[in-house]
């Protein structure tokens, strides 16, 4: 999967015979065993493995749920209750799957912000980053359709609101909307096709994840210094070093996951979704799942409907252009004193947008949403490009090894060229 020549040598005669016909063992060996990993990765780099775990967990629990679930508007709600009450450990499967979606997003948001902080999108990792944005988009579509399946009040009205948004797209909007609905409003055909697509998309995600990992293995992983691997001393082999660390971090994440599943399984959901869908009763508050709230706030911040839709899609699409919007040549924000501050302002702005997304669009909430939305775009479209020109970065370490050993930077920059004696810790 990478450019690294494989060091795998099959030992048995069968191994040799097989490897000469399908070199998959060598591929796995070079990708996940011998693959060189920067030795200075921190725990934010374990979220890739955690995300793979979450994807597999969602697919496995989802396949079992689909054995009991009935995608029919008059039976769906009942079939979910059947799972919760009568299927052996059905409640566990469903709570794992419903909370698993949220955990997937928790992990992906940490993963995305890690990439933004350490400049993991910069050359030569642009394609890797864009594939990540595509995965994120597919995840959002999958999660949205999954939330519709229990066919509760929030499922139905969430689907109604979101599909109505798509109708604002000029020319093709109405067609897209009728295709999604399969009729003149959200109804049984909508539920049928959402179920079908909800089952399909995770496998597409799986495919793009393979491309994502492939694209990662060509340049190798970024690291907290942003300085590439220069010698063997900068790296350790993936196995056992990265594998054991990823497994440990995944198990710790599972504790967090289990806390929600077993103790507060409905905390991240909506009470209204335990009321069967009723097209003639609109819930008092229609709110999307927490992971969509920042985008929902952006949608509602724009007084014009089409404008709101454009802003919402643009807020996601802008991520794909970050590799070119960021003009700084320094990857890691650790060496970018100015950008570091703006990074954390962006994090705060996103959280603020999330909070606003759950609030009614009235009074000062609207004004604050508009300011926060404006700042979101200003960050990516103005601050990010401009900072690269005006910021004076800190000296970078000569190598990962120097950084690990506490040697202060050099790399041709004026200050700190003289190495300090090694200091532990």
């Amino acid at each position, binding site marked *: 999967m990478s450019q690294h020549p494989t060091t795998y040598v099959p030992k048995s005669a069968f191994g040799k015979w097989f490897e000469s016909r399908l070199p998959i063992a060598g591929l796995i060996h070079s990708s996940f065993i011998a693959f060189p990993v920067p*030795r*200075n*990765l921190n*725990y934010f780099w374990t979220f890739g493995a955690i995300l793979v775990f979450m994807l597999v967990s969602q697919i496995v629990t989802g396949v079992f749920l689909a054995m009991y679930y009935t995608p029919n508007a008059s039976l769906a709600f009942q079939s979910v*209750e059947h799972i919760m*009450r009568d299927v052996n450990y059905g*409640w*566990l499967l469903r709570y794992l799957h419903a909370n698993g979606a949220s955990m997937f997003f928790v992990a992906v948001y940490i993963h995305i912000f890690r990439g933004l902080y350490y400049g993991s999108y910069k050359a030569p990792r642009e394609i890797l980053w864009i594939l990540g944005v595509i995965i994120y988009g597919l995840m959002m579509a999958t999660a949205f359709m999954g939330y519709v399946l229990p066919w509760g009040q929030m499922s139905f009205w969430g689907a*109604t*609101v979101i599909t*109505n*948004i798509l*109708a604002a797209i000029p020319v093709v909007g109405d067609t897209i909307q009728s295709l999604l609905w399969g009729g*003149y*409003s959200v109804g049984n055909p909508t539920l049928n096709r959402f179920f079908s697509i909800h089952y399909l998309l995770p496998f597409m995600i799986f495919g793009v994840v393979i491309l994502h990992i492939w694209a990662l293995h060509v340049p190798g992983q970024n*690291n*907290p*210094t942003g300085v590439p691997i220069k010698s063997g001393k900068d790296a*350790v082999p993936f196995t*056992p*070093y990265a594998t*054991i*660390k990823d*497994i*440990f971090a995944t*198990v*710790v994440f*599972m*504790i967090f996951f*289990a806390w929600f599943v*077993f*103790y*507060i*399984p*409905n*905390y991240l959901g909506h*009470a*209204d979704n*335990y*009321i069967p869908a009723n097209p003639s009763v609109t819930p*008092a*508050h*229609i*709110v999307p799942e927490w992971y969509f709230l920042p985008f929902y706030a952006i*949608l*509602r911040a724009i007084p014009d*409907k089409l404008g709101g839709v454009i802003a919402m899609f643009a807020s996601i699409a802008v991520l794909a252009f970050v590799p070119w919007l960021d003009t700084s040549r320094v990857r*890691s924000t*650790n*060496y970018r004193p100015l950008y570091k501050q703006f990074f954390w302002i962006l994090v705060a702005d996103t959280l603020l947008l999330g909070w606003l997304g759950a*609030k*009614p*669009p*009235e009074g000062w909430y609207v004004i604050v949403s508009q300011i926060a939305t404006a700042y979101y775009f200003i960050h990516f479209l103005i601050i990010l490009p401009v900072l690269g020109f005006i910021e004076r970065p*800190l000296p970078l370490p000569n190598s*990962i090894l120097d950084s*690990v*050993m*506490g040697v202060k930077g050099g790399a041709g920059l004026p200050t700190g060229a003289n190495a300090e004696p090694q200091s532990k*810790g």
Partner: protein
Amino acid sequence: MRALGNNIMMKRTLLIAAAVLGLSAPAFAAGETPVPPQLKWSFHGPFGTFDRAQLQRGFKVYREVCSSCHSLSYVAFRNLAQPGGPEFSEAQVKALAAEYKIQDGPNDAGDMFERAGRPADHFPAPFPNENAAAAANGGKAPPDLSLMAKARTYERGFPWFVFDMFTQFAETGPDYVHAVLTGYEEAPADFKVPEGGHFNEYYPGHVIAMPKPLSDGQVEYPKDANGQPQAPETVEQYSRDVTAFLMWTAEPHLEARKRIGFQAILFLIVLSGLLYFTKKKIWARVGHSDLTTHQA
């Protein structure tokens, strides 16, 4: 055709307007709804369990009061005997089910017929269908109660919703149900209750269609050794008991969930401890491992 198209367009426009502009407009303008009081529930927290006697009393309240209007369609008689619930005996459940008439059929002659209930039957609904329920109740069918304790809530607001994650406070539903059951009061002088409505302090907007369902002494509770009722026969106690019962009907595997959860989390903590030391030992070979972010 055009009229239909216009109608659809109009409906769509309204929906869009609702979606984009007014979605979350405050549900009701008439006065502030107070926050329901937080009760101590036996099923709260990591080791929470149901109180069998309370569930049995709560079932009695449901059966003698609520069931005349509200269905409980997701619950079967047999559920009343299963572990983690009221745990009536099999014989009690069999006898109880037999008291109900269940419509069955069609038989070989093609006729529907009535027979005595069996443990596998679900609780029959008080009305033959939703329209009948609505017609008998002023135009709106009384909701099914199976999921009521999870289908209602109130807004916790910042920062409480953050703390709730750590304290495992997941009882907004039961608190709300209890508050509404005990929230019937005389309407304030300046508050006009519309025809067919009833004033309730905790119901959003204060006007609820359901008349005050419970009154003191209405349901007779089992007697203890001294011939006294095992719990006070008051509206307050009835409300608590029936709410606990409805929490069980909404989450019949709550006890198993919390018990398995404790085992699972304990296992994961031990496993993560072992993995941590394994990781430490492996990384000891390369010296410094993952400390660099602080050394920039």
